[in-house]
Protein backbone atom coordinates (compact mmCIF):
# COMPACT_ATOMS: atom_id res chain seq x y z
CA UNK A 1 0.00 0.00 0.00
CA UNK A 2 1.32 3.40 -0.94
CA UNK A 3 0.30 6.34 1.21
CA UNK A 4 -0.74 9.42 -0.77
CA UNK A 5 1.42 12.51 -1.06
CA UNK A 6 -1.04 14.77 0.75
CA UNK A 7 -1.41 12.43 3.69
CA UNK A 8 2.37 12.07 3.95
CA UNK A 9 2.72 15.84 4.00
CA UNK A 10 -0.04 16.28 6.56
CA UNK A 11 1.37 13.64 8.84
CA UNK A 12 4.95 14.90 8.66
CA UNK A 13 4.72 17.32 11.58
CA UNK A 14 3.27 14.94 14.19
CA UNK A 15 5.51 12.16 12.93
CA UNK A 16 8.71 14.16 13.33
CA UNK A 17 7.63 15.54 16.70
CA UNK A 18 6.71 12.06 17.91
CA UNK A 19 10.09 10.67 16.91
CA UNK A 20 11.90 13.59 18.52
CA UNK A 21 9.90 13.07 21.71
CA UNK A 22 11.81 9.79 22.00
CA UNK A 23 15.00 11.81 22.24
CA UNK A 24 17.38 14.09 20.36
CA UNK A 25 17.99 13.03 16.78
CA UNK A 26 19.11 14.19 13.34
CA UNK A 27 17.67 14.14 9.85
CA UNK A 28 18.94 10.85 8.55
CA UNK A 29 18.15 9.01 11.79
CA UNK A 30 14.63 10.46 11.84
CA UNK A 31 14.01 9.07 8.37
CA UNK A 32 15.38 5.68 9.36
CA UNK A 33 13.06 5.67 12.35
CA UNK A 34 10.03 6.55 10.21
CA UNK A 35 10.95 3.70 7.91
CA UNK A 36 11.34 1.33 10.82
CA UNK A 37 8.13 2.32 12.61
CA UNK A 38 5.97 2.21 9.49
CA UNK A 39 7.50 -1.02 8.27
CA UNK A 40 8.51 0.77 5.08
CA UNK A 41 4.94 1.81 4.31
CA UNK A 42 5.56 5.52 4.79
CA UNK A 43 7.88 6.66 2.02
CA UNK A 44 9.25 10.15 2.33
CA UNK A 45 11.34 11.97 -0.20
CA UNK A 46 14.40 12.32 2.00
CA UNK A 47 15.20 15.93 1.16
CA UNK A 48 11.72 17.15 2.03
CA UNK A 49 12.26 16.34 5.69
CA UNK A 50 14.63 19.27 6.05
CA UNK A 51 12.29 22.12 5.13
CA UNK A 52 9.83 20.51 7.59
CA UNK A 53 12.45 20.44 10.35
CA UNK A 54 13.37 24.05 9.66
CA UNK A 55 9.74 25.10 9.80
CA UNK A 56 9.31 23.33 13.11
CA UNK A 57 12.39 25.14 14.37
CA UNK A 58 11.00 28.48 13.26
CA UNK A 59 7.74 27.73 15.04
CA UNK A 60 9.68 26.90 18.18
CA UNK A 61 8.60 23.26 18.33
CA UNK A 62 12.13 21.97 18.05
CA UNK A 63 15.55 23.35 18.84
CA UNK A 64 18.51 22.70 16.58
CA UNK A 65 22.17 22.56 17.55
CA UNK A 66 25.24 21.75 15.51
CA UNK A 67 27.26 18.89 16.88
CA UNK A 68 29.71 16.29 15.73
CA UNK A 69 28.86 12.87 14.37
CA UNK A 70 30.91 9.77 15.31
CA UNK A 71 32.65 10.16 11.98
CA UNK A 72 33.73 13.67 12.92
CA UNK A 73 31.39 15.36 10.43
CA UNK A 74 29.33 18.35 11.42
CA UNK A 75 25.81 17.25 12.11
CA UNK A 76 22.67 19.18 13.04
CA UNK A 77 20.74 17.69 15.94
CA UNK A 78 17.14 18.44 16.78
CA UNK A 79 15.50 18.34 20.18
CA UNK A 80 11.79 18.76 20.93
CA UNK A 81 10.81 21.78 23.05
CA UNK A 82 7.97 22.13 25.54
CA UNK A 83 5.93 23.91 22.93
CA UNK A 84 6.67 21.07 20.55
CA UNK A 85 5.40 18.54 23.08
CA UNK A 86 2.20 20.52 23.49
CA UNK A 87 1.80 20.68 19.74
CA UNK A 88 2.38 16.95 19.46
CA UNK A 89 -0.30 16.26 22.09
CA UNK A 90 -2.73 18.50 20.24
CA UNK A 91 -1.98 16.91 16.87
CA UNK A 92 -2.32 13.42 18.29
CA UNK A 93 -5.74 14.42 19.56
CA UNK A 94 -6.69 15.69 16.11
CA UNK A 95 -5.54 12.50 14.43
CA UNK A 96 -7.50 10.48 16.90
CA UNK A 97 -10.65 12.38 15.99
CA UNK A 98 -10.03 11.82 12.29
CA UNK A 99 -9.27 8.17 12.86
CA UNK A 100 -12.31 7.66 15.10
CA UNK A 101 -14.56 9.36 12.59
CA UNK A 102 -13.35 7.12 9.81
CA UNK A 103 -13.88 4.05 11.95
CA UNK A 104 -17.39 5.09 12.88
CA UNK A 105 -18.55 4.98 9.27
CA UNK A 106 -20.07 1.76 8.09
CA UNK A 107 -17.84 1.77 5.03
CA UNK A 108 -15.62 -1.17 5.91
CA UNK A 109 -12.50 -0.68 3.78
CA UNK A 110 -11.60 2.30 5.94
CA UNK A 111 -10.97 -0.02 8.82
CA UNK A 112 -7.71 -0.79 7.12
CA UNK A 113 -6.41 2.62 8.11
CA UNK A 114 -3.31 2.02 10.22
CA UNK A 115 -3.94 2.39 13.92
CA UNK A 116 -2.58 5.19 16.06
CA UNK A 117 0.67 6.97 15.54
Amino acid at each position, binding site marked *: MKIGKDLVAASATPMVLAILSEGES*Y*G*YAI*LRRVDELSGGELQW*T*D*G*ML*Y*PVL*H*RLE*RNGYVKATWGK*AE*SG*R*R*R*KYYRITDRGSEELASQRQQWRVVDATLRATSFHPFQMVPQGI
Partner: protein
Amino acid sequence: MLDERIAEWRSYLRRGQAIHQVDVDELEDHLRSQVADLKEAGLDEDEAFLIAVKRIGDLEALSREFASEYSERLWKRLVLATDAGESGVGWNREALVAVGLAVAAGVAIKIPELFGVHLNGPDRDVSFYIRNFSLFVLPFLAGFFAWKRGMEFAGRLWLMAPFMAAALVMNLFPFTPEGHTELLAALHLPMALWLTVGVAYAGGAWRDHDQRMNYVRFSGEWFIYFALIALGGGVLMGTTMFIFGAIGLDAEFLLNEWILPCGVMGAVIIAGWLVEAKQSVIENMAPVLTLLFTPLFTLVLLAFLGTMVWTGSAIDVEREVLIGFDLLLVVVVGLLLYAISARDPQAEPGAFDGVQLVYALDYESGGAAAANSGPHGVEHGDQVLGIDAADAPEAGRADRARRT
Protein backbone atom coordinates in the same frame (compact mmCIF):
# COMPACT_ATOMS: atom_id res chain seq x y z
CA MET B 1 35.95 10.17 -6.01
CA LEU B 2 32.99 10.38 -3.70
CA ASP B 3 34.18 13.74 -2.39
CA GLU B 4 34.38 15.02 -5.93
CA ARG B 5 30.86 13.95 -6.76
CA ILE B 6 29.56 15.38 -3.53
CA ALA B 7 31.29 18.67 -4.24
CA GLU B 8 29.59 18.72 -7.64
CA TRP B 9 26.25 17.94 -6.07
CA ARG B 10 26.78 20.69 -3.51
CA SER B 11 27.55 23.32 -6.11
CA TYR B 12 24.44 22.29 -8.01
CA LEU B 13 22.38 22.65 -4.86
CA ARG B 14 23.88 26.03 -4.06
CA ARG B 15 22.75 27.40 -7.39
CA GLY B 16 19.19 27.26 -6.13
CA GLN B 17 20.00 30.28 -3.92
CA ALA B 18 17.22 29.49 -1.47
CA ILE B 19 19.33 26.76 0.06
CA HIS B 20 22.10 28.21 2.16
CA GLN B 21 25.51 26.83 2.83
CA VAL B 22 24.54 25.50 6.27
CA ASP B 23 21.50 23.73 4.87
CA VAL B 24 23.66 22.18 2.20
CA ASP B 25 26.00 21.01 4.97
CA GLU B 26 23.08 19.36 6.67
CA LEU B 27 21.95 17.70 3.46
CA GLU B 28 25.48 16.56 2.79
CA ASP B 29 25.61 14.87 6.18
CA HIS B 30 22.41 13.09 5.23
CA LEU B 31 23.82 12.06 1.87
CA ARG B 32 27.00 10.72 3.40
CA SER B 33 25.11 8.79 6.10
CA GLN B 34 22.94 7.23 3.42
CA VAL B 35 25.92 6.35 1.25
CA ALA B 36 27.69 4.77 4.21
CA ASP B 37 24.64 2.65 5.07
CA LEU B 38 24.15 1.55 1.49
CA LYS B 39 27.80 0.60 1.19
CA GLU B 40 27.49 -1.44 4.32
CA ALA B 41 24.56 -3.20 2.68
CA GLY B 42 26.94 -4.26 -0.07
CA LEU B 43 26.58 -1.61 -2.79
CA ASP B 44 29.64 -0.04 -4.34
CA GLU B 45 30.31 3.64 -3.91
CA ASP B 46 28.90 4.75 -7.25
CA GLU B 47 25.65 2.89 -6.81
CA ALA B 48 25.35 4.07 -3.24
CA PHE B 49 25.86 7.67 -4.28
CA LEU B 50 23.32 7.47 -7.08
CA ILE B 51 20.66 5.93 -4.88
CA ALA B 52 21.33 8.38 -2.04
CA VAL B 53 21.02 11.34 -4.40
CA LYS B 54 17.83 9.94 -5.85
CA ARG B 55 16.32 9.42 -2.41
CA ILE B 56 16.98 13.04 -1.46
CA GLY B 57 14.68 13.82 -4.32
CA ASP B 58 14.23 16.38 -7.03
CA LEU B 59 16.48 19.30 -6.19
CA GLU B 60 14.25 21.81 -7.97
CA ALA B 61 11.33 20.81 -5.80
CA LEU B 62 13.55 20.89 -2.73
CA SER B 63 14.74 24.38 -3.65
CA ARG B 64 11.16 25.52 -4.00
CA GLU B 65 10.32 24.01 -0.64
CA PHE B 66 13.23 25.84 0.99
CA ALA B 67 12.29 29.02 -0.84
CA SER B 68 8.76 28.98 0.52
CA GLU B 69 10.06 28.23 4.01
CA TYR B 70 12.61 31.04 3.76
CA SER B 71 10.96 33.56 1.49
CA GLU B 72 12.98 36.30 3.16
CA ARG B 73 16.17 34.75 1.85
CA LEU B 74 15.34 35.65 -1.69
CA TRP B 75 14.71 39.18 -0.57
CA LYS B 76 17.92 39.27 1.41
CA ARG B 77 19.87 38.63 -1.72
CA LEU B 78 19.08 42.19 -2.68
CA VAL B 79 20.94 43.46 0.35
CA LEU B 80 24.64 44.04 0.05
CA ALA B 81 25.63 41.92 3.05
CA THR B 82 26.62 38.36 2.26
CA ASP B 83 24.99 35.62 4.22
CA ALA B 84 26.94 34.28 7.11
CA GLY B 85 27.58 30.82 5.75
CA GLU B 86 28.92 32.01 2.45
CA SER B 87 32.58 32.57 1.84
CA GLY B 88 32.04 36.16 0.86
CA VAL B 89 35.62 37.28 0.30
CA GLY B 90 35.55 37.54 -3.48
CA TRP B 91 32.13 39.05 -3.35
CA ASN B 92 33.13 41.72 -0.92
CA ARG B 93 36.20 42.62 -2.84
CA GLU B 94 34.17 43.01 -5.98
CA ALA B 95 31.81 45.34 -4.14
CA LEU B 96 34.73 47.37 -2.86
CA VAL B 97 36.30 47.65 -6.29
CA ALA B 98 32.97 48.66 -7.83
CA VAL B 99 32.25 51.29 -5.21
CA GLY B 100 35.83 52.53 -5.43
CA LEU B 101 35.58 52.90 -9.20
CA ALA B 102 32.21 54.62 -8.86
CA VAL B 103 33.74 57.13 -6.49
CA ALA B 104 36.69 57.54 -8.83
CA ALA B 105 34.35 58.26 -11.74
CA GLY B 106 32.45 60.75 -9.58
CA VAL B 107 35.71 62.49 -8.71
CA ALA B 108 37.00 62.36 -12.28
CA ILE B 109 34.13 64.41 -13.61
CA LYS B 110 35.10 67.16 -11.13
CA ILE B 111 38.75 67.26 -12.20
CA PRO B 112 38.23 69.64 -15.15
CA GLU B 113 36.91 72.15 -12.62
CA LEU B 114 40.42 72.39 -11.22
CA PHE B 115 41.59 73.57 -14.63
CA GLY B 116 38.93 76.20 -14.87
CA VAL B 117 36.49 74.27 -17.05
CA HIS B 118 33.21 74.82 -15.27
CA LEU B 119 29.98 72.91 -15.60
CA ASN B 120 27.91 75.72 -14.12
CA GLY B 121 28.24 79.41 -13.62
CA PRO B 122 28.71 82.34 -15.97
CA ASP B 123 31.90 81.09 -17.65
CA ARG B 124 30.72 77.52 -18.05
CA ASP B 125 31.90 75.32 -20.89
CA VAL B 126 28.99 72.96 -21.35
CA SER B 127 30.22 71.88 -24.75
CA PHE B 128 33.35 70.38 -23.18
CA TYR B 129 31.23 68.27 -20.85
CA ILE B 130 28.82 67.21 -23.57
CA ARG B 131 31.70 66.05 -25.73
CA ASN B 132 33.63 64.30 -23.00
CA PHE B 133 31.28 63.00 -20.31
CA SER B 134 31.47 59.39 -21.46
CA LEU B 135 35.26 59.55 -21.31
CA PHE B 136 35.05 60.26 -17.61
CA VAL B 137 33.09 57.16 -16.75
CA LEU B 138 33.27 54.37 -19.33
CA PRO B 139 37.00 53.78 -18.87
CA PHE B 140 36.22 52.97 -15.23
CA LEU B 141 33.49 50.56 -16.24
CA ALA B 142 35.84 48.94 -18.76
CA GLY B 143 38.47 48.83 -16.02
CA PHE B 144 36.03 47.08 -13.70
CA PHE B 145 35.41 44.32 -16.21
CA ALA B 146 39.08 44.10 -17.18
CA TRP B 147 39.79 43.52 -13.50
CA LYS B 148 36.93 41.14 -12.96
CA ARG B 149 37.67 39.00 -16.00
CA GLY B 150 41.36 39.05 -15.16
CA MET B 151 42.39 40.44 -18.52
CA GLU B 152 46.06 40.33 -19.33
CA PHE B 153 48.20 43.40 -19.15
CA ALA B 154 48.55 43.67 -22.93
CA GLY B 155 44.78 43.38 -23.30
CA ARG B 156 44.24 46.17 -20.81
CA LEU B 157 46.71 48.32 -22.65
CA TRP B 158 44.88 47.75 -25.91
CA LEU B 159 41.66 48.57 -24.15
CA MET B 160 42.96 52.02 -23.33
CA ALA B 161 43.69 52.81 -26.96
CA PRO B 162 40.09 53.54 -28.04
CA PHE B 163 39.57 55.81 -25.06
CA MET B 164 42.77 57.70 -25.81
CA ALA B 165 41.89 58.01 -29.48
CA ALA B 166 38.40 59.22 -28.61
CA ALA B 167 39.78 61.76 -26.16
CA LEU B 168 42.12 63.11 -28.81
CA VAL B 169 39.49 63.31 -31.53
CA MET B 170 36.88 64.85 -29.28
CA ASN B 171 39.19 67.56 -28.08
CA LEU B 172 41.42 68.30 -31.07
CA PHE B 173 38.81 68.20 -33.80
CA PRO B 174 37.81 71.76 -34.73
CA PHE B 175 34.13 71.49 -33.79
CA THR B 176 31.99 74.55 -34.33
CA PRO B 177 30.70 75.34 -30.83
CA GLU B 178 27.19 73.91 -30.39
CA GLY B 179 27.23 72.76 -34.01
CA HIS B 180 25.58 69.65 -35.28
CA THR B 181 28.82 67.77 -35.80
CA GLU B 182 29.64 68.24 -32.17
CA LEU B 183 26.22 67.07 -31.09
CA LEU B 184 26.34 64.00 -33.31
CA ALA B 185 29.84 63.15 -32.18
CA ALA B 186 28.81 63.56 -28.54
CA LEU B 187 25.77 61.33 -29.11
CA HIS B 188 27.69 58.56 -30.79
CA LEU B 189 30.81 58.55 -28.70
CA PRO B 190 29.13 56.81 -25.72
CA MET B 191 27.82 54.12 -28.07
CA ALA B 192 31.22 53.53 -29.63
CA LEU B 193 32.85 53.48 -26.20
CA TRP B 194 30.11 51.19 -24.93
CA LEU B 195 31.36 48.66 -27.46
CA THR B 196 34.84 49.09 -26.07
CA VAL B 197 33.43 48.32 -22.63
CA GLY B 198 31.96 45.23 -24.30
CA VAL B 199 35.45 44.06 -25.20
CA ALA B 200 36.38 44.28 -21.54
CA TYR B 201 33.10 42.62 -20.56
CA ALA B 202 33.97 39.67 -22.78
CA GLY B 203 37.41 39.59 -21.19
CA GLY B 204 38.89 40.33 -24.61
CA ALA B 205 37.04 37.44 -26.27
CA TRP B 206 34.70 39.73 -28.17
CA ARG B 207 34.78 37.54 -31.22
CA ASP B 208 32.88 34.91 -29.30
CA HIS B 209 29.25 34.92 -30.34
CA ASP B 210 27.91 33.97 -26.90
CA GLN B 211 29.93 36.66 -25.22
CA ARG B 212 28.53 39.27 -27.56
CA MET B 213 24.98 38.14 -26.88
CA ASN B 214 25.74 38.20 -23.17
CA TYR B 215 26.89 41.75 -23.58
CA VAL B 216 23.65 42.67 -25.32
CA ARG B 217 21.77 41.18 -22.38
CA PHE B 218 24.07 42.98 -19.98
CA SER B 219 23.36 46.26 -21.76
CA GLY B 220 19.61 45.82 -21.41
CA GLU B 221 19.85 44.88 -17.76
CA TRP B 222 22.31 47.68 -17.13
CA PHE B 223 19.84 50.13 -18.62
CA ILE B 224 17.10 48.96 -16.29
CA TYR B 225 19.32 49.21 -13.23
CA PHE B 226 20.52 52.62 -14.32
CA ALA B 227 16.94 53.81 -14.78
CA LEU B 228 16.03 52.51 -11.32
CA ILE B 229 19.02 54.23 -9.73
CA ALA B 230 18.16 57.42 -11.62
CA LEU B 231 14.65 57.21 -10.21
CA GLY B 232 16.02 56.92 -6.69
CA GLY B 233 18.48 59.72 -7.44
CA GLY B 234 15.62 61.95 -8.53
CA VAL B 235 13.88 61.37 -5.22
CA LEU B 236 17.14 62.07 -3.40
CA MET B 237 17.59 65.37 -5.22
CA GLY B 238 14.00 66.42 -4.66
CA THR B 239 14.37 65.67 -0.96
CA THR B 240 17.65 67.58 -0.80
CA MET B 241 16.07 70.65 -2.36
CA PHE B 242 13.11 70.41 -0.03
CA ILE B 243 14.91 69.98 3.28
CA PHE B 244 17.47 72.68 2.54
CA GLY B 245 14.70 74.92 1.27
CA ALA B 246 12.92 74.39 4.58
CA ILE B 247 15.79 76.02 6.46
CA GLY B 248 16.01 78.82 3.92
CA LEU B 249 18.97 77.57 1.86
CA ASP B 250 18.97 77.07 -1.87
CA ALA B 251 20.61 73.71 -2.48
CA GLU B 252 20.62 74.07 -6.21
CA PHE B 253 24.39 74.45 -6.42
CA LEU B 254 24.74 71.23 -4.44
CA LEU B 255 22.61 69.44 -6.99
CA ASN B 256 24.16 70.91 -10.10
CA GLU B 257 27.73 70.81 -8.90
CA TRP B 258 27.88 67.56 -7.02
CA ILE B 259 24.92 65.23 -6.69
CA LEU B 260 23.88 65.26 -10.32
CA PRO B 261 27.22 64.96 -12.17
CA CYS B 262 28.96 62.73 -9.62
CA GLY B 263 25.82 60.69 -9.06
CA VAL B 264 25.29 59.96 -12.74
CA MET B 265 28.90 58.93 -13.19
CA GLY B 266 28.84 56.71 -10.13
CA ALA B 267 25.50 55.19 -11.11
CA VAL B 268 26.93 53.99 -14.42
CA ILE B 269 29.51 51.89 -12.58
CA ILE B 270 27.19 50.75 -9.81
CA ALA B 271 24.56 49.68 -12.34
CA GLY B 272 27.21 47.67 -14.20
CA TRP B 273 28.32 46.00 -11.00
CA LEU B 274 24.76 45.29 -9.86
CA VAL B 275 23.96 43.55 -13.13
CA GLU B 276 26.92 41.29 -12.48
CA ALA B 277 26.32 40.74 -8.77
CA LYS B 278 22.55 40.64 -8.65
CA GLN B 279 21.78 39.44 -12.10
CA SER B 280 19.12 37.02 -11.02
CA VAL B 281 17.06 39.88 -9.64
CA ILE B 282 16.64 41.62 -12.94
CA GLU B 283 17.05 38.87 -15.50
CA ASN B 284 13.43 37.90 -15.18
CA MET B 285 12.29 41.47 -15.55
CA ALA B 286 14.25 42.58 -18.58
CA PRO B 287 12.66 40.20 -21.10
CA VAL B 288 9.24 41.07 -19.72
CA LEU B 289 9.87 44.77 -20.24
CA THR B 290 11.13 44.06 -23.73
CA LEU B 291 8.03 42.05 -24.46
CA LEU B 292 5.92 44.91 -23.15
CA PHE B 293 7.58 47.73 -25.03
CA THR B 294 8.47 46.06 -28.29
CA PRO B 295 4.87 45.97 -29.56
CA LEU B 296 4.33 49.55 -28.42
CA PHE B 297 7.39 50.79 -30.24
CA THR B 298 6.34 48.73 -33.23
CA LEU B 299 2.97 50.45 -33.32
CA VAL B 300 4.59 53.86 -33.15
CA LEU B 301 7.07 52.98 -35.86
CA LEU B 302 4.38 51.53 -38.12
CA ALA B 303 2.32 54.66 -37.64
CA PHE B 304 5.38 56.70 -38.43
CA LEU B 305 6.11 54.68 -41.57
CA GLY B 306 2.52 54.99 -42.67
CA THR B 307 2.53 58.71 -42.15
CA MET B 308 5.79 59.06 -43.97
CA VAL B 309 4.50 57.16 -46.99
CA TRP B 310 1.14 58.96 -46.86
CA THR B 311 2.56 62.45 -46.82
CA GLY B 312 5.69 61.61 -48.81
CA SER B 313 7.47 64.14 -46.69
CA ALA B 314 10.51 62.11 -45.68
CA ILE B 315 12.86 64.34 -47.60
CA ASP B 316 11.66 67.55 -46.03
CA VAL B 317 12.61 66.78 -42.46
CA GLU B 318 14.87 69.17 -40.68
CA ARG B 319 18.26 68.10 -39.55
CA GLU B 320 17.30 68.36 -35.88
CA VAL B 321 14.60 65.84 -36.61
CA LEU B 322 17.13 63.64 -38.32
CA ILE B 323 19.30 63.60 -35.25
CA GLY B 324 16.27 62.56 -33.26
CA PHE B 325 15.61 59.92 -35.88
CA ASP B 326 19.15 58.75 -35.49
CA LEU B 327 18.50 58.17 -31.80
CA LEU B 328 15.29 56.36 -32.61
CA LEU B 329 17.27 53.96 -34.76
CA VAL B 330 19.54 53.30 -31.81
CA VAL B 331 16.51 52.49 -29.67
CA VAL B 332 15.18 50.16 -32.34
CA VAL B 333 18.49 48.39 -32.74
CA GLY B 334 18.73 48.11 -28.97
CA LEU B 335 15.29 46.59 -28.60
CA LEU B 336 15.78 44.33 -31.57
CA LEU B 337 19.11 43.00 -30.39
CA TYR B 338 17.90 42.65 -26.85
CA ALA B 339 14.74 40.84 -27.86
CA ILE B 340 16.79 38.44 -29.95
CA SER B 341 19.23 37.86 -27.14
CA ALA B 342 16.36 37.06 -24.77
CA ARG B 343 14.78 34.69 -27.25
CA ASP B 344 14.87 31.00 -26.44
CA PRO B 345 16.97 29.52 -29.24
CA GLN B 346 14.89 26.34 -29.18
CA ALA B 347 11.56 28.13 -29.56
CA GLU B 348 9.58 28.03 -32.78
CA PRO B 349 9.24 31.32 -34.64
CA GLY B 350 6.18 33.10 -33.30
CA ALA B 351 4.25 36.34 -33.60
CA PHE B 352 6.90 38.14 -31.61
CA ASP B 353 9.50 37.31 -34.21
CA GLY B 354 7.18 38.79 -36.79
CA VAL B 355 7.18 41.99 -34.81
CA GLN B 356 10.95 41.93 -34.83
CA LEU B 357 10.93 41.50 -38.56
CA VAL B 358 8.84 44.65 -38.80
CA TYR B 359 11.52 46.28 -36.72
CA ALA B 360 14.27 45.22 -39.01
CA LEU B 361 12.30 46.50 -42.00
CA ASP B 362 11.63 49.72 -40.22
CA TYR B 363 15.26 50.02 -39.40
CA GLU B 364 16.18 49.66 -43.04
CA SER B 365 13.59 52.08 -44.32
CA GLY B 366 14.46 54.48 -41.55
CA GLY B 367 18.04 54.33 -42.64
CA ALA B 368 16.98 54.89 -46.23
CA ALA B 369 14.86 57.87 -45.27
CA ALA B 370 17.76 59.36 -43.40
CA ALA B 371 20.05 58.69 -46.35
CA ASN B 372 17.65 60.50 -48.66
CA SER B 373 17.83 63.47 -46.43
CA GLY B 374 21.58 63.42 -46.33
CA PRO B 375 22.35 65.97 -49.03
CA HIS B 376 19.54 68.14 -47.79
CA GLY B 377 21.02 68.07 -44.34
CA VAL B 378 24.40 69.14 -45.57
CA GLU B 379 22.86 72.03 -47.45
CA HIS B 380 21.27 73.19 -44.26
CA GLY B 381 24.32 72.61 -42.15
CA ASP B 382 26.75 75.26 -41.19
CA GLN B 383 29.69 73.06 -42.06
CA VAL B 384 30.31 70.42 -44.67
CA LEU B 385 32.28 67.85 -42.79
CA GLY B 386 30.86 64.70 -44.20
CA ILE B 387 30.65 63.12 -40.78
CA ASP B 388 27.16 64.51 -40.24
CA ALA B 389 25.77 63.22 -43.47
CA ALA B 390 27.48 59.90 -43.04
CA ASP B 391 26.20 59.51 -39.52
CA ALA B 392 22.49 59.59 -40.07
CA PRO B 393 22.03 56.75 -42.54
CA GLU B 394 24.52 54.50 -40.87
CA ALA B 395 23.29 54.99 -37.34
CA GLY B 396 23.63 51.77 -35.38
CA ARG B 397 25.73 50.01 -37.98
CA ALA B 398 28.23 52.80 -37.98
CA ASP B 399 28.36 52.68 -34.20
CA ARG B 400 29.43 49.11 -34.35
CA ALA B 401 32.03 49.82 -36.97
CA ARG B 402 33.43 52.90 -35.30
CA ARG B 403 34.78 51.00 -32.37
CA THR B 404 37.74 53.31 -31.90
